[in-house]
């Protein structure tokens, strides 16, 4: 199978104005992924499925990922030019090495929702090619293009992503909640999901459970 | 002891048991004491009564004996069914029910007692929308008609409760009325599933009524009479001195027996055809809204129906109370009948333990496209058989061959047509 970069080149040739970037995978797994812009996602997916060289006819896995806003503290090494020599340059003095200082720069990375598709080919027995589609930000009417019209396998899995993450899939034939009951309002898998306070007393409260216990019982039950 | 004509017809019970029916005179009643035991016992009980009261007492005794015998057989059958099903599945079956007051473990013999008490004490829920009268009447009607069918089966040389001239017709007339009771049960429960299931059960009962009747006609044709005791008498002779001339050992008889057996399986809602109470479909079918003792009555009626059909199969094809070998006829006739009946009931349970269930359309297709044509062809073969009864020595095997061919041919043809497109498959492996 050709590498992700070659695939990206061919896709750019085919869809010149599509936003395609390769996301490296730092871990040892060696599975880089291809970030696809929302407007062209469906047509790119159809191309990947029908292209004779790739034939990615099997969408194995659809995963929703919630990337919250992050404060990334980066230490940047900056070389500070030596202060202008007060005394005239005296060749004998050891050359003043430029001072290297590390600065802690706090960078704010905006969060977003992301859906990851693992594509394989049953015809040519190769894969995976990993597609990623991202929303601009984490505001609620998050919506992404649905790939169910291309791979029927995404039908239930996209409904699950909608059910647990709240990402509406445009073009999905039957978008309803699949695991939670229909009247459930919130989206449980989001990082900022607050669990309902249905705490049930446990005799061995410690750690997170202890805080909940304190909210319900001023003093933890007969602290032994 | 001739009775006014109408009465003897209306209550022929007395005439039959009174051994005054024309038939008894003809037969050399083997007079071993054991053989006449039931009659002597009955004589002790009712001997001192004046003649006119005697036939009433006799008929009452007959009724009581029949009901007690078959009710206890029902209790034992439920236990035997679960024991055989258990043993087939490598497990013991019920063996923990202790006798009421002493905790002696009785290998399950107390299980029917326990079931009976459970059924009696269970609350009898009647859905409020239900039609009370019909809901109450359905199990009683079903049980009544099933018990009626038990009257005409000859249990021993002289032990037939109702020796009618057209007893086979009486048997099927009473059997046909059970559909009415099934409909009442389904309709009275006022529940969409039980009505749907009652319809399917009726479709099954009606479509298997035909092969049941058609498979009996050859026997009536060969025996020359509709009376069950005459039919059993006809099967009394021996071939070559020791082979019993039971009808099942003739080609048309075997085919008739198989069709009768399959049809009776369906008629009593047993294993491959137990669609009405298939748990994987419409829960308990038309019995969904019944609980407590009414459900037990339905259960009992099913077993009575099964015993009646098995009894009739034994009477028509397996030589009723005839002994299989001449020198064995010292054993009393009613024991032979009981043995054959229990054997056939055992085969019923064996089949229940082994086969999956047929779908409603396959079930009716089997009846209309396989059993009915086969029964009709069997009728033709029997006609050929009876016409060629007097063929001389060498022609006899030819007669057998022709009869066997007349049955085997259509059986194979219809079988292939029935399982068109079905068959064991061979599978390829990936390169």
């Amino acid at each position, binding site marked *: 199978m050709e590498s992700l970069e070659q695939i990206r080149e061919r896709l750019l040739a085919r869809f010149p104005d599509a936003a395609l970037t390769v996301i490296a995978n730092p871990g040892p797994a060696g599975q880089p992924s291809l970030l696809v812009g929302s407007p062209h996602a469906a047509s790119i997916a159809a191309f990947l499925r029908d292209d004779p060289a790739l034939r990615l006819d099997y969408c194995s896995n659809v995963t929703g990922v919630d990337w919250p806003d992050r404060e990334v503290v980066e230490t940047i090494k900056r070389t500070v030019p030596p202060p202008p020599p007060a005394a005239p340059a005296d060749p004998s003095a050891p050359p003043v090495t430029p001072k290297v200082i590390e600065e802690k720069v706090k960078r704010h990375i905006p969060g977003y929702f992301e859906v990851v598709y693992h594509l394989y080919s049953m015809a040519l027995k190769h894969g995976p090619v990993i597609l990623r589609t991202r929303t601009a930000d984490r505001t609620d009417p998050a919506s992404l293009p649905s790939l169910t019209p291309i791979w029927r396998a995404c039908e239930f899995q996209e409904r699950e992503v909608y059910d647990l993450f709240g990402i509406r899939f445009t073009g999905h034939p039957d978008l309803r909640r699949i695991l939670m009951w229909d009247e459930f309002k919130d989206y449980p898998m989001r990082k900022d999901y607050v669990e309902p306070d249905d705490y049930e007393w446990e005799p061995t409260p410690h750690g997170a459970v202890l805080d909940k216990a304190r909210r319900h019982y001023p003093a933890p039950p007969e602290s032994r | 002891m001739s009775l*006014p*004509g*109408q009465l003897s*017809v*209306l209550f022929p019970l007395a005439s039959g048991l009174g051994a005054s029916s024309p038939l008894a005179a003809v037969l050399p009643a083997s007079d071993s004491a054991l053989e006449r035991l039931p009659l002597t016992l009955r004589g002790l009980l009712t001997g001192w009564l004046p003649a006119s009261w005697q036939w009433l007492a006799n008929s009452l005794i007959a009724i009581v004996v029949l009901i007690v015998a078959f009710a206890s057989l029902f209790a034992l059958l439920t236990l035997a069914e679960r024991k055989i099903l258990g043993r087939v599945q490598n497990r013991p079956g019920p063996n923990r029910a202790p006798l009421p007051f002493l905790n002696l473990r009785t290998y399950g013999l107390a299980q029917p007692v326990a079931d009976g008490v459970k059924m009696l004490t269970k609350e009898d829920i009647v859905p409020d929308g239900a*039609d009370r*009268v*019909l809901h109450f009447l359905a199990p009683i009607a079903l049980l009544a008609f099933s018990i009626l069918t038990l009257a005409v089966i000859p249990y021993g040389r002289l032990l037939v409760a109702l020796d*009618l*001239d*057209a007893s086979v*017709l*009486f048997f*099927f*007339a*009473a059997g*046909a*009325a059970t*559909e*009415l009771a099934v*409909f*009442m049960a389904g*309709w009275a429960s006022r529940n969409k599933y039980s009505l749907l299931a009652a319809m399917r059960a*009726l479709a099954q009962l*009606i479509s298997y*009524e035909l092969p049941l009747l058609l498979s009996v006609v050859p026997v009536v044709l060969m025996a*020359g*009479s*509709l*009376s069950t005791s005459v039919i059993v008498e006809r099967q009394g002779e021996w071939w070559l001195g020791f082979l019993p001339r039971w009808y099942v050992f003739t080609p048309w008889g075997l085919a008739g027996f198989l069709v009768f057996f399959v049809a009776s399986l369906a008629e009593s809602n047993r294993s491959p055809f137990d669609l009405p109470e298939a748990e994987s479909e419409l829960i308990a079918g038309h019995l969904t809204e019944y609980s407590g003792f009414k459900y037990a009555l339905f259960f009992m009626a099913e077993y009575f129906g099964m015993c009646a059909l098995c009894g009739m199969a034994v009477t028509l094809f397996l030589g009723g109370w005839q002994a299989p070998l001449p020198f064995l006829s010292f054993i009393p006739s009613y024991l032979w009948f009981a043995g054959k009946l229990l054997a056939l009931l055992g085969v019923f349970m064996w089949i229940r333990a082994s086969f999956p269930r047929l779908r409603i*359309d396959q079930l009716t297709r089997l009846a209309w496209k396989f059993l009915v044509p086969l029964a009709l062809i069997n009728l033709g073969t029997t006609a050929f058989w009876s016409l060629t009864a007097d063929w001389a020595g060498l022609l006899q095997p030819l007669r057998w061959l022709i009869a066997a061919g007349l049955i085997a041919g259509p059986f194979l043809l219809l079988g292939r047509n029935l399982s068109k497109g079905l068959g064991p498959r061979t599978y390829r492996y990936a390169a």
Partner: protein
Amino acid sequence: MTTVLLCLALFTVAAAAVAMAMRNLIHSALLLVASWAGIAAFYLWAGAEFVAFAQLLVYVGAISMVVLFAVLLTRHSRLDFDREPETRGRVRLALFTGGAVCGVLVAAVLGTAPSSVPAAVPSLTVRQLGLALMGPHAASLLAVGVVLTVALLGGVVLAASARHSDPEDAP
């Protein structure tokens, strides 16, 4: 002996009468079946075993099913019986037909000689019945046979034609 006859007659007539008066269609159908059973009992009383059991088998077993299925499958809820207005013409017509039927029945009852001792009942065996049917009455037996087969074939054709409108199994 007449007591048995009387109570049988009473039972049959009562069943038929109540059947007409019942509001619930299924109950009236079942009572109709009960009256047929009453007629079968008549045959038994008259000593005709074979005909009694045939009646029981055919009517109580099969025809009752046809009636009940018909009652079930047709829409019969109270409201969609649009009652025509009772014009004078209809009332007069109803009275006329009712009267005619009553007249015939009454004539038949009066015509028979009352309380004649029932003639000795010929005890017929089934074999003689069969021979009679196949002998002198063979023609009528064949006619009945033809009618039945035609009815059966008609049923099959109807069922088959119903099949084409909505295909039963997947192609």
